[in-house]
């Protein structure tokens, strides 16, 4: 827990000097403009909440993906990765703490999207069920950071993981129902989507923006948490295996 808290606080301090990891936040208002322009041109103002929510979720996933790689890359660049591995702290926990800090800051994307919609389009998207909205946000942030540890472990193995990182962006936006709800995707895709925690999160967010009560919120939040925990467990397992491998190959410092 000490290492986790330290890693979280360290990352906040680190980002004050290195803001690269928050680059996706610059794209978020632009996506908001694009999506709202489309829904407005289509005469579908009822989808305004979708158009405002999607850029925030995109930014959140992009931030977590990017930071997972950047954290490892920056450790290598500073020459600290070997020294961190040589401490009693678990590298997985350290990575989780650092990525979580980035994702928490990444939540600013929600503020940006809502603000862009209000200022440029005069669209104020209400949040009728703020409790479920915030609960979904909190659990989604945890799941994001947990899942991102998989990405971090791949970066420990190889710098070329950047390609893998890029490939993971848009498929997850689609499978996660970020832009188009999973229920509107082809039937054969839907079971696959349900393995992606973001599909549960996106639906919960949208439901919390609607007037109707959120159906089975606890169970669905539990799914987000479970899938995020599975992601963290898989990431931790991969990290241990990969660390064992790079200790064997001698490539920890310069994979």
């Amino acid at each position, binding site marked *: 827990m*000490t*290492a986790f*808290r*330290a*890693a979280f606080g*360290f990352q906040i*301090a*680190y980002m004050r*000097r*290195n803001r690269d990891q928050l680059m996706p936040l610059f794209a978020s208002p632009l996506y908001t403009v694009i999506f709202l322009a489309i829904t407005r041109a289509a005469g579908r103002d009822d989808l305004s909440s979708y158009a405002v929510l999607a850029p925030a979720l995109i930014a959140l996933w992009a931030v977590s993906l990017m930071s997972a790689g950047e954290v490892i890359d920056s450790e290598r660049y*500073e*020459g*600290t990765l*070997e*020294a*961190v*591995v*040589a*401490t*009693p*702290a678990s590298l997985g926990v*350290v990575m989780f703490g650092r990525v979580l800090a980035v994702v928490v800051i990444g939540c600013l994307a929600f503020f940006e999207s809502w603000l862009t919609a209000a200022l440029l389009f005069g669209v104020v998207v209400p949040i009728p069920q703020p409790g479920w909205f915030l609960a979904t946000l909190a659990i989604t942030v945890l799941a994001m950071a947990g899942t991102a540890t998989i990405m971090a472990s791949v970066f420990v193995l190889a710098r070329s993981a950047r390609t893998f990182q890029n490939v993971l962006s848009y498929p997850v936006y689609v499978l996660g129902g970020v832009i188009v709800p999973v229920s509107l995707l082809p039937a054969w895709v839907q079971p696959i989507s349900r393995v992606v925690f973001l599909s549960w999160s996106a639906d919960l967010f949208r439901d919390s923006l609607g007037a109707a009560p959120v159906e089975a919120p606890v169970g669905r939040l539990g799914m987000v948490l479970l899938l995020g925990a599975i992601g963290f467990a898989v990431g931790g397992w991969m990290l241990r295996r990969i660390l*064992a491998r790079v*200790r*064997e*190959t*001698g490539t*920890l410092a310069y994979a």
Partner: protein
Amino acid sequence: MGAAAEQHGLRSGSGGVDRASGGVVVGSDLAIETRGVSREFRTGRGRRAATVVALGSVDLAVPTGEVHGLLGPNGAGKTTLCKVLSTVLLPTRGQAFVAGFDVVRQTDEVRRRMGIVLGGERGLYNRLTARRNLRYWGALFRLSDRDAARRADELLERVGLYDRAEERVETFSRGMKQRLHLARGLIGDPQVLLLDEPTTGMDPVAARDFRTLVGELRGEGRTILLTTHDMVEAEHVCDRVTLIDRGELIATEAPRTLASWISRFERVDVDGADDRLLAEVAAIAGVGRIEHREDGSTRIETTQDGAAAAVLRLIVDADVTGVRTSLPSLEEVYLHIVGDRAMDVHRTIRDDT
């Protein structure tokens, strides 16, 4: 012998260190032990595949409380051995123990007891302050916030950086970074400290302070393995020195003992010796090179025990009184053993094709 050491059947025997003589006292346990540790790296692919042997079969025993020097040229295997001991690199063969714990199977136990200072300017978070760096490293060693803060300040004071604690590391000189490295290595209050080229970039005053600090750390009962190119440093701070070259340990002795090894290379400097006398000296068994020096004196190098005494007798009998003898420095021991390959980067390559 500690419980942990007993658990792994570590032998006593090499024991603690008698500082006065630099000798070894039987009876304490070993802080560092390697048994036949080797490390190979594979390079290239296909027909270009080769195996680089960075460490041969290394047997090293460092008793608790000893400051042990690892002396060798670039590519000798010093850093590789440090990495194996610090658990970030697996040995290809053999076993290594730190504080009685296996560096492969008991990494957590090893990491809790060890601090590492890897050489060079890298290894710190440059855009953060010195204090922030140390507090973070303290947390990674499972110190509470309060303990990490207290320990960070103590160490900043100790390495002379307290007044610069709130400045970013990227503004530090190389020597200051090295001192911060050292503080980082101590943040977890380690029993065993691995220092890989710790004085690289330090000015002479800082290097002298470093030696004082190493002495203090030894006084606290810590065990230190120090790799260095600096012979003077090794002579000043180490209880024993291991010479390493091409991944093989050549010798482990007290610095003074190492120097005495080549007493057969003892030098006799003589003023005013004529050619006839020097010819007679040259005829003595065990006399090596005779060199005329810029100051007008002549240096006679011997190559076997007893030769220097015979040379001295001959010179004194010839009524030449301007004569001096000198013992070789550790650097000369090093150069004699490693030879003119000292500045080369070595590696043993086995072609796998």
